[in-house]
């Protein structure tokens, strides 16, 4: 197999990357506070393969790409911040939507409250620690995730594209060299070699193709190399075990050959997420509570960000709404025989306003106020809530997604890291 030269651009990129990496180390004790969206620039960035998902508790494990041998890296547990965003195929998503094995980009913080962390709390300097063959950077203490996004989402958010350089194939499998660069043309360029095979899906317009289709069309060679002339694509990236000598090489699971194909994938994911949010309600947190007599209160909340605009426009001034106490896991509550909706407070949206609090992806910048006749304990500034405008369907969420106040103990509110195996 031919070795592709590492071009000077990649070297440059690495240089910049290591500089960026060092800077936040000096302010490594930053922790997000309840009720405040943290500035994205304070987040620690890494990427890795999703290896485990506990979607009901919005957490999982990721095998982080450090500077060593990838296969030696233990899955590293992470939890999503309540306003943490998950994006898949260029659209908002829930953890359950992401296939295991997908390589994700992560921006994360230290646990906001180590006492109630749902994942192991690590010493704050672990991201600089070397873990044997796996190298450094594979177990950062920053395991509370602000943004978790797959490759296409990452590229879309940052305005990047992949440009295919060369492919070399043998028996329906082989290597592909691609470069990620800003769509606009100016900026860092990152080059990488991936494996492709018969499992790789190719998306073109409405079509779903496989590698043999491309071969039959002669777009790709049956055997040998071919220059792909900077063909602009989006890549879906996963990982598969590599031969012993290869420290790290990712695999291309999907190639979106044109914008339409990518857009159609995003559309389906967006619709999936819209249906998800409509059934689980919009998460947000309480900004303030103004009290009336005997439990009457006006509760003002900020809706979390990153979702489809149509979800936000469903919140209309004067409309009815339901407001439910939630948890950092965004779980609902139920009690007795009362379902999740029955536990919510009902009221009228007396204000819906765009604030200037955006500037952070966790926030939608939308503040709504609801007047309720019985304010419950969960409506306290900084606490997470779920809110449902009247137009959304009234559905019952499944058992693992709510906490039953008499049957479930505190462990269900504050899941402990016990679920994660120690390696």
């Amino acid at each position, binding site marked *: 197999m031919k070795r592709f030269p590492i071009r000077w651009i990649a070297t440059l990129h690495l240089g910049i990357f290591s500089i960026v990496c060092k800077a936040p180390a000096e302010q490594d004790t930053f922790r997000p506070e309840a009720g405040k969206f943290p500035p994205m620039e304070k987040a620690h960035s890494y990427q890795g393969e999703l290896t*485990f998902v506990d979607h009901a508790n919005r957490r999982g494990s990721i095998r982080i790409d450090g500077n060593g041998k990838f296969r030696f890296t233990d899955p590293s547990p992470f939890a999503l911040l309540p306003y943490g965003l998950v994006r898949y195929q260029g659209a908002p998503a829930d953890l359950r939507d992401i296939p295991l*094995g997908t390589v994700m980009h992560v921006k994360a913080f230290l646990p906001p409250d180590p006492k109630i962390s749902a994942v192991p709390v690590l010493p704050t300097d672990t991201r600089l620690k070397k873990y044997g063959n796996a190298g450094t950077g594979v177990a950062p203490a920053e395991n509370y995730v602000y943004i978790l996004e797959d490759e296409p989402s990452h590229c879309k958010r940052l305005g990047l594209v992949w440009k295919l350089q060369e492919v070399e194939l043998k028996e329906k499998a082989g290597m592909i060299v691609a470069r990620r660069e800003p769509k606009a043309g100016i900026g860092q360029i990152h080059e990488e070699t991936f494996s492709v095979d018969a499992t790789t899906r190719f*998306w073109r317009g409405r079509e779903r193709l496989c590698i043999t289709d491309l071969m039959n069309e002669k777009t790709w060679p049956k055997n040998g190399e071919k220059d792909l002339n900077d063909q602009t694509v989006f890549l879906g990236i996963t990982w598969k*075990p590599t031969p012993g000598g290869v420290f790290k090489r990712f695999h291309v699971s999907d190639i979106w050959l044109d914008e339409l194909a990518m857009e159609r994938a995003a559309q389906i994911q967006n619709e999936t997420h819209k249906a998800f949010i409509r059934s689980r309600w919009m998460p947000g947190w309480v900004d303030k509570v103004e009290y009336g007599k005997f439990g009457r209160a006006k509760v003002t909340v900020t809706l979390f960000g990153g979702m489809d605009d149509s979800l936000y426009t469903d919140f209309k001034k004067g409309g009815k709404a339901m407001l439910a106490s939630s948890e950092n896991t965004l779980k609902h509550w139920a009690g007795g025989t009362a379902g999740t*909706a029955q536990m919510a407070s009902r009221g009228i949206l007396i204000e819906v306003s765009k604030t200037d609090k955006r500037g952070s992806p966790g926030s939608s910048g939308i503040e709504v106020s609801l007047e309720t006749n019985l304010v419950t304990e969960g409506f306290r500034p900084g606490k997470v809530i779920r809110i449902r405008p009247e137009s959304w369907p009234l559905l019952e969420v499944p058992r693992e997604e709510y906490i039953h106040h008499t049957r479930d103990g505190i462990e269900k509110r504050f899941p402990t890291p016990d679920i994660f195996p120690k390696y």
Partner: protein
Amino acid sequence: MKLNFARWVSTLHLVLFILVSNARPEEQPFRPETGKFPPLEKAHSYRGELVFVDHANRRGSIRIQGEGMYFRNKPHPFAMLPYGIIRYHNAPAQLRDIPLGTVLHVRAFLPPDPKLSAVPVLPINNRNKTAGYSGKGIAPAENHVILLEDEASHCLREGKVWELKEVNIKDGAGKIIARRESKNSGTKAEEETMTFDAATRIWRGLEKLQVADLVHEGTWPESGKKSLKDQAVLLGITWRPTPDGVFTRFHVSDVWLDDVSIQRAARNQTETHKAFIRSRWMPAFVDAIEYGKFGTATVTATLFGGMDDSLYADFKKDVSAMMNPVENTLKHTHGAAPAIWPAEAQSLRSQGSKAMLRLAAAVSGFDSRPT
């Protein structure tokens, strides 16, 4: 898609199933034994939604469809038997390949060895217990799975097909009435109403479509009802929250309109699985060991089934091979027994799925009665 119906098969199947169901409680509880593949007909059947996966330990949880209010059902833990087969898109698969939320058909047994069960061991009669609003059958003790398959795989294996009766659409989403028919059945199965929405994927030939595309083409109406005239399709089924009054209603995630489309999906999944098995090796049971001198031995093993033929075809006589003892979870023993790592086959005779290896050193893991 060309689909033929000979309905008597379905009827026969149903009758048999009822007989088997009735007869079962009187029997001694059946447990699979180590080294023996249990008969599929002794398995308990159920279906439900995959809600949790611990793929590394080949286990997870399923919300099982019972008689009551589906959403209240607690996720029910299950473990794959070592030889348990998973099928997705009509191809062999791993747990990690199946998206959470997929509705799966399950055939399962009592834990072979309750002491070592990786999931909770329940009272044997648990499947007949009523659990409040959830109703009966949502937590069977039969939680060791021999066959786990998605709707498409299930239909194709059993010779069934979904006939679409009617679609009722509003704002790009709605309900579809369909009936799962046996291709050779004489009687009609019961109708089921399922939801679909703008996220439902519709596969036709090479195309991946959405509901909007069908509406645009005029195949489906923009609004209101339309008869679909028993159009034969395969369905991918998931579950989404339903209103309180609706006990159980499933959701259509995928519709395969023709053979090409499902074959494409199957091919992709087959390749995924092949790559997976090649990197993790073929699992098998040890049948016999003939000991030689100084630790050498000839080990005969039966390869587990349900995979693509090409994988079995790779086991050729006189080809060198490696063998590693693994656990019931099929986890490798990494670095634990370097002595056997270079174990080299002296001879390999292929007998169906039996493989015989001559090892330079036998270790305790190669026991004809592994625990």
